[in-house]
């Protein structure tokens, strides 16, 4: 009896330890980034593009990278969603448990595991072949390529969880597969789909490797899909790489901005999920 209680206490302790390590690391990351970045954070950082000498510590901001990241992540998430939704619907309502479906899921899982730099290199080869230059468009294409497997599998999983009885109810009323997929399954899965989209957005906005070769880097805000574009992760990367302390601080400040962007989006999506949850059948 005593041994069992001891066991219980020991493993509970272990779980608490793991949990606190994870939560602690998260807080540590926040702390390091904020403490290092705070001195460099200023209004001009948010509202100005880099002026001459910015990378030597002179005035200017990283508005170019903020806008660039937002454009890129929104574009890539939207493009990935256009691919993901049909795939997830097809897997769940048409292919179901067929061999084709399991092969597709396997491929997506493999794609999920490929490092983003490989996607960058892959897109770069195609760009060379087509004679295309690094631009917002190619950045969007590359990022969407590497986030769509994540998004698709996440949507696929929430759709799989939507109860069979809902599909049965819909079919029993004479729905086609498409109607069942779009009007019932999609509605039931909506909150989960939002989470999937957010997950993909977070991965997309935070990735440096995939856009290193494909999006280019520029000090100005892009005006069209064919302009090169700066992103926050690359801004962090380049600024950290300089030997000048002020610029390194700005790298952390850019990190803070990136964190805040993702955080704001998380909160917004939590709030809107609550609204979508209203109709979900438990």
């Amino acid at each position, binding site marked *: 009896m005593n041994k069992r209680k001891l066991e219980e206490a020991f493993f509970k302790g272990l779980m608490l330890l793991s949990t606190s390590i994870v939560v602690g690391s998260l807080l540590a990351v926040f702390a390091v980034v904020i403490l290092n970045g705070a001195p460099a954070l200023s209004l001009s950082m948010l509202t100005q593009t880099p002026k001459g000498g910015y990378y030597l510590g002179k005035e200017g901001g990283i508005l170019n990278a903020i806008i660039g990241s937002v454009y890129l992540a929104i574009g890539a998430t939207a493009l990935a969603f256009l691919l993901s939704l049909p795939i997830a619907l097809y897997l769940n309502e048409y292919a*179901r*448990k067929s061999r084709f479906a399991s092969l597709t899921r396997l491929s997506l899982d493999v794609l999920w595991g490929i490092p983003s730099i490989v996607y960058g290199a892959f897109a770069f080869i195609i760009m060379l072949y087509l004679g295309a230059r690094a631009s917002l468009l190619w950045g969007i294409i590359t990022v969407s390529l590497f986030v769509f497997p994540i998004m698709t599998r996440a949507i696929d999983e929430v759709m799989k969880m939507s*109860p*069979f*009885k*809902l*599909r*049965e*109810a*819909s*079919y*029993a*009323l*004479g*729905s*086609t597969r498409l*109607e069942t997929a779009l*009007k*019932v399954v999609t*509605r*039931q899965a909506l909150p989960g789909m939002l989470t999937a989209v957010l997950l993909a957005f977070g991965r997309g906005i935070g990735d440096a490797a995939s856009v290193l070769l494909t999006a280019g880097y520029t000090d100005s805000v892009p005006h069209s899909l064919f302009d090169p574009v700066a992103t926050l992760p690359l801004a962090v990367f380049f600024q950290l790489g300089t030997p000048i302390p002020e610029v390194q601080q700005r790298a952390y400040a850019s990190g803070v901005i990136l964190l805040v962007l993702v955080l704001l989006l998380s909160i917004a999506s939590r709030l809107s999920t609550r609204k979508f949850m*209203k*109709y*979900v*059948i*438990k």
Partner: protein
Amino acid sequence: MFKPHISIQGLNVFYGERHVLKDITVDIPERRITAIIGPSGCGKTTLLKSLNRLTDLIDGVKVSGKVLVDGVNIFDNGIDVTEIRKKMGLIAQMPNPLPMSIYDNTAYGPRIHGMIDEKELDQLVENCLRGAGLWDEVKERLKEPASKLSLGQQQRLCLARALAVKPEYLLCDEPTSALDPISAQYIETQLLTIKKSYTIVFVTHVLRQARRLADYVIFLYLGELIEHGPAETVFTQPSNPRTRAYIEGVFG
């Protein structure tokens, strides 16, 4: 005295290697309540779901034989299965409202079948909710999620939703087994009220319920059709010893 409305001829259903319905041949009478009775696992639900081809949704299912609805075999190639299902409302064992409002649940069927006129829909939704005995409880909150209703109300909503596609048949799969006694009685009363207009097939393993509702009885045992006939005959003078044993409560 009973006019057949569905004619089942030599129906066999396999789930993979399992032979769940064995050579069933029986007619289901028009505008009556037909109860399918028998112990758990005897194939009652499978027989019911064969009538609107919901069996299609089960992986690895094989069906042979015929089910004639209005003289047409619904398992023929080229049959529009959505048309078949539209003719048959289904009330499932667990209430299964769709993830939308009370109103949209009721209007779901008519909408997919092409009804778009708002006034027409409003009228239909009201009529169907009245027909299911739910209108007075929900008329003030039609826009609320269906999931907010109690289980008993949800089941009546499912009845309303089924009625909304103007079916000729109602297929009920133990529709009261998950409900409290009062809601269950409510559903039974509604079914008895509307049975003059619909051919109702009712699966149950509660014999008392079958006695209360059924005009015609089909007794299944281990996938075989043991006996069928008018309710009075089956309940009072069953011809097969297994039917008699089941009705007397020897097993089941």
